[in-house]
């Protein structure tokens, strides 16, 4: 019988800190699976236009997210809201969700620390 050595799955903390684009993409996929343009639109709408992902940044990040198992492809189909051609849809994985939660907690701690230092949450003169 051959002895199989399995590499343990990496913990969510090993992926932190995430780049802004990566975190935005994961957040866009938390509540629904989406195709590339739908991710770009969701990020732009959620940030009220402050964050705009271009196709290069989006697909470069998606490639890395697929390779690290934080996101998975969930098939190809036409978007019912638009015309037209079939598009590749992406969904967040369990690991991706855990990583997004860990990143959100990390950012929350940072904001709390900034608040304690009165960098935010107080009226500036």
């Amino acid at each position, binding site marked *: 019988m051959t002895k199989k050595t399995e*590499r343990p799955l*990496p913990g969510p903390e*090993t992926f932190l800190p995430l780049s802004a684009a990566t975190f935005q993409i994961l957040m866009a996929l938390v509540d629904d699976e989406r*195709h*590339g*343009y739908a991710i*770009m639109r969701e990020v732009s709408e959620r940030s009220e236009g402050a964050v*705009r992902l*271009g*196709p*290069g*940044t*989006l*697909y*470069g990040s*998606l*490639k*890395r997210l697929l*390779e*690290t198992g934080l996101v998975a492809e969930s098939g190809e189909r036409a978007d019912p809201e*638009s015309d037209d*051609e079939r*598009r*590749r849809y992406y969904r967040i994985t369990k690991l991706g969700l855990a990583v997004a939660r860990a990143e959100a907690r990390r950012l929350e701690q940072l904001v709390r620390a900034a608040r304690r230092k009165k960098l935010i949450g107080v009226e500036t003169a």
Partner: protein
Amino acid sequence: MTAAERAYRLMLRAYPRDFRAQYEREMLLAFRDLRREPRPGITSFWTSTCLDVARSAPALRLEALRMSISSFTHTEEDFMMKMTMGIMAIMIGALEAMNAMQEVWGAGIINHDSRALIGGTMALVAGALIVAAGIALVRRSADAAVLAQGAAITCAAVFAFLALAVPLMSGFATVLGLGFPILLFAFARWYRPRDPSAAVIA
């Protein structure tokens, strides 16, 4: 396809070939959708498109280069190690076999020394086994590691026996006949090329 889409497709050549093969169609669709959005002006649209390509393409190119270097090193390391050990085994095995043949012919056949004849024949077989293991390593056969381990154990046992029972071989031949099989056995038993997939993708 519109002129703008053709121009964008041309810009996508800045990305690595594998990446384009996987995502070019999707990127063109996203570009088309972006162009349909109401925007303040064509200049700002093209500026942000160029900036997006300029920011993401070099990083992806660098990643692709790093991956190809890592895979090249892995293949090369495996090739070089097996080739070096294989050539060494062929040369040392042939040297031992020639030395043994000389012993068989000179002392065994001409001088009718039966101990030299038996000892020389055993050393000849051991040398031939080492040569066979070397050829298998150079050809990178599937069973090269098993053959090399078997040949190394046999050769070491033969030379240990000859050193004790039939002290006919020269000191150099004995050291080589015992030392090289130990090195060959260790290589065949424990050498494994580095696994490039073990690298964490940042």
